[in-house]
């Protein structure tokens, strides 16, 4: 396919989802759930079709190009245009976003049908799909941007969608406020990151005089020789934005709470696509990062520390989605490490495979939750009261599950594939992408390699724990005993994703390296990846070891009762308590940041605002009133005294004129 003929299609990756939004807003009520779901899914699918056409066009013209769509800003010499950048990197992101997005749209038709009824407001079905399409549109703007300003628009757009969808059931959650608070937390923490990105963009504008990718990246080497500190500042402030959006230390705290959103949202936004925006940004800005080794090291260590830290927390969680959330943070840490090391291809490879298997895992978890809710409702309908904690039943708590292998066979098998891919078992996709990162680390940064290997071991361990707790053993609640397989609209996308998660490794298979040859046209300074057999074997052994240890602890002697303590709680004692409580990071932030901030706000509100500022404003008013009080005596209402005043005035004027 000729590149020049498909290039003008580029804006349609954004237009189709936007069209879907308008159609659903205008006619959604009349169309009913089927129509809404079909329109929204079709919008995402058409967007994917356009991305696929662009990819076909790029196959014969891998240098890519930009499609000038609109002049946006023109101030003096500075211009920022609404140009669509079509190169191998952006099209790869488009394919992932629209492809995984389409599957999740289809899945949501089934999932939200049950969810809106379970939560008692079927009217929100349409709203969900409008938000989902809005997210796809914003994400497409982000990845197809040709300058930092347009990228920032998409960056904020996906942040807004994330906020809206985390708080989708804003009146639900603990105390009727927990979901709204989770949404607010995500927004505020992301704002801190966005502040960093904004400063980086300002610095780029100030020092380069342009925000266009090509101009900035071309000038980067000269600027780096003259002003190395500036590039360092830009990259580090950008890193702050990355830690916010991609949930890295120290700003990762919003992502676990974001699980308050409906499960398809967790899969699409908080696992597969939006959180990878930070990885994409660093990959895109390799030309800047490779100028300063220090910034690269910082990015790398932030990623590695996050990968290990989040993996430890995932070990101690009981909520099926929280485990996956910390796993996502950990895997994002792998990607950030990779792009920090300059191994951008490996990072992008892991991004793509992770999108497949983590979306699969989240959607599988959603299917499990649907089954649990179904079983719970059936148990409640039969008037059973065998369980003491019946009223506060949590369908996401893995302690309430068990034995779902027989009840939900399709979900079990696809979940198993996703879990093994996450653990890094050959020949599933996660093995190849993780191995490429580990191989690169072992060559250039041995300490990072050890940290990542430890994280990989923990990954396999918590995967085994989760599998054992959810699918094996005996049902530990009536809900689990009464669970039933989800409908086809839910399971079919799962099966497709399972296929992708299993075969995704072919994308950059060690002998062909398709992805590398594809991406080297748009990534800066790509080094050919090396396949190191020893590293691959070690990582495989580590993954199998993690699975084995997990199986020995959780699978051989499954939990008997939902209230039974975790088998690790006794041997690890205080350590497990720390893991269960997420190392008390939230409490630490509460004490170190939120509390002092609130106290400062209180101080500014009470003494400063109500005392000083109100005092000034009221003081001016009171002064006016006092002055007026003394002067009002002049207006005594006697006509004759007014006449006298006029007379005296005339006399004065005349006297002045005469004596002048």
């Amino acid at each position, binding site marked *: 396919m000729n590149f020049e003929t498909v290039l003008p299609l580029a804006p349609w990756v954004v237009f189709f989802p936007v069209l879907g939004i308008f159609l659903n807003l205008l006619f959604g009520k009349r169309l009913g759930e089927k129509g809404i779901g079909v329109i929204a899914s079709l919008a995402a699918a058409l967007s994917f079709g356009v991305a696929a056409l662009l990819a076909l066009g790029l196959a014969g013209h891998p240098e890519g190009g930009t499609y000038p769509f609109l002049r946006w800003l023109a101030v003096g010499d500075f211009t920022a245009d609404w140009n669509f950048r079509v190169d191998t990197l952006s099209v790869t992101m488009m394919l992932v976003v629209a492809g995984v997005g389409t599957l999740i749209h289809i899945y949501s038709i089934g999932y939200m049908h049950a969810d809106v009824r379970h939560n008692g407001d079927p009217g929100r079905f349409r709203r969900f799909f409008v938000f989902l399409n809005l997210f796809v549109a914003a994400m497409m703007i982000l990845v197809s941007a040709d300058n930092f300003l347009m990228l920032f628009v998409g960056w904020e757009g996906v942040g807004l969608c994330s906020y809206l969808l985390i708080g989708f059931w804003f009146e639900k959650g603990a105390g009727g406020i927990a979901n709204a608070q989770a949404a607010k937390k995500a927004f505020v923490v992301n704002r801190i990151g966005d502040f960093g990105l904004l400063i980086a963009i300002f610095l780029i504008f100030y020092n380069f005089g342009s925000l266009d990718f090509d101009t900035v990246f071309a000038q980067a080497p000269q600027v780096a020789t003259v002003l190395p500190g500036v590039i360092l500042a830009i990259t580090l402030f950008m890193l702050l934005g990355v830690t916010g959006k991609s949930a890295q230390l120290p700003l990762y705290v919003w992502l676990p709470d974001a699980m308050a959103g409906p499960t398809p949202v967790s899969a699409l936004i908080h696992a597969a696509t939006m959180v990878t925006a930070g990885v994409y940004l660093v990959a895109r800005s390799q030309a800047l990062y490779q100028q300063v080794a220090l910034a690269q090291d910082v990015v790398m260590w932030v990623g590695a520390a996050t990968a290990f830290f989040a993996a430890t927390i995932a070990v101690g969680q009981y909520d099926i989605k929280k485990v996956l959330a910390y796993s996502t943070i950990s895997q994002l840490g792998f990607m950030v490490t990779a792009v920090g090391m300059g191994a951008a291809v490996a990072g992008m490879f892991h991004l793509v495979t992770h999108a497949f298997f983590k979306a699969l895992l989240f959607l599988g978890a959603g299917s499990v939750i649907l089954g649990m809710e179904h079983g719970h409702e059936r148990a409640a309908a039969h008037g059973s009261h065998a369980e003491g904690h019946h009223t506060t039943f949590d369908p996401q708590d893995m302690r309430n599950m068990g034995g779902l292998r027989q009840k939900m066979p399709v979900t079990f098998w696809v979940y198993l594939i996703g879990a093994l891919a996450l653990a890094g078992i050959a020949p599933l996709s996660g093995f190849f992408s993780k191995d490429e990162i580990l191989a690169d680390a072992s060559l250039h940064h041995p300490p990072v390699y050890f940290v990542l290997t430890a994280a990989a071991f923990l990954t396999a361990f918590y995967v085994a724990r989760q599998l054992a707790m959810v699918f094996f053993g005996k049902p530990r609640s009536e809900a689990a005993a009464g669970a039933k397989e989800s409908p086809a609209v839910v399971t079919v996308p799962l099966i497709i994703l399972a296929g992708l998660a299993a075969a995704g490794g072919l994308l950059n298979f060690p002998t062909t390296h398709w992805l590398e040859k594809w991406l080297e046209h748009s990534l800066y300074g790509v080094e050919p990846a090396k396949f190191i057999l020893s590293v691959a074997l070690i990582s495989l052994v580590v993954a199998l070891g993690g699975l084995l240890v997990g199986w020995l602890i959780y699978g051989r002697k499954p939990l008997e009762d939902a209230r039974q303590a975790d088998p690790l709680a006794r041997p690890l004692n205080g350590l497990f308590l720390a893991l269960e409580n997420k190392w008390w990071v939230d409490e630490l932030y509460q004490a170190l940041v939120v509390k002092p901030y609130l106290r400062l706000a209180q101080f500014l509100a009470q003494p400063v605002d109500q005392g000083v500022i109100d005092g000034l404003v009221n003081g001016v008013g009171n002064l006016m009133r006092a002055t007026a009080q003394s002067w009002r005596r002049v207006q005594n209402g006697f006509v004759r005294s007014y*006449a006298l005043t006029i007379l005296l005035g005339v006399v004065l004027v005349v006297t002045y004129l005469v004596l002048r």
Partner: protein
Amino acid sequence: MPMSYYLILSAAMFAIGALGVVLRRNPLVVFMSLELMFNAANLVFVAFSAYHQILDGDLFVFFVMTTAAAEVAVGLALMVAIFRAKRTIDLDEMSTLKG
């Protein structure tokens, strides 16, 4: 007769008129005092007109008299309206604008 006589008489009339306007509470008397002030001015006009042998001053006097007549007509109409509303035309009673 010397010019100064006219001017002194005029000044005396003006002062009496002004005092009347300021001191009296009956609006009719105030109007009469106003007329006195007008006529003081008219007297000066006429005196200077004769002194300089030009007619400009006389011309002005006619204007002043016409205007004064119109003004008194309006003023009396106001007084009637005020009397209907307040049953009094004492100037000191008209103090609604007292601050």
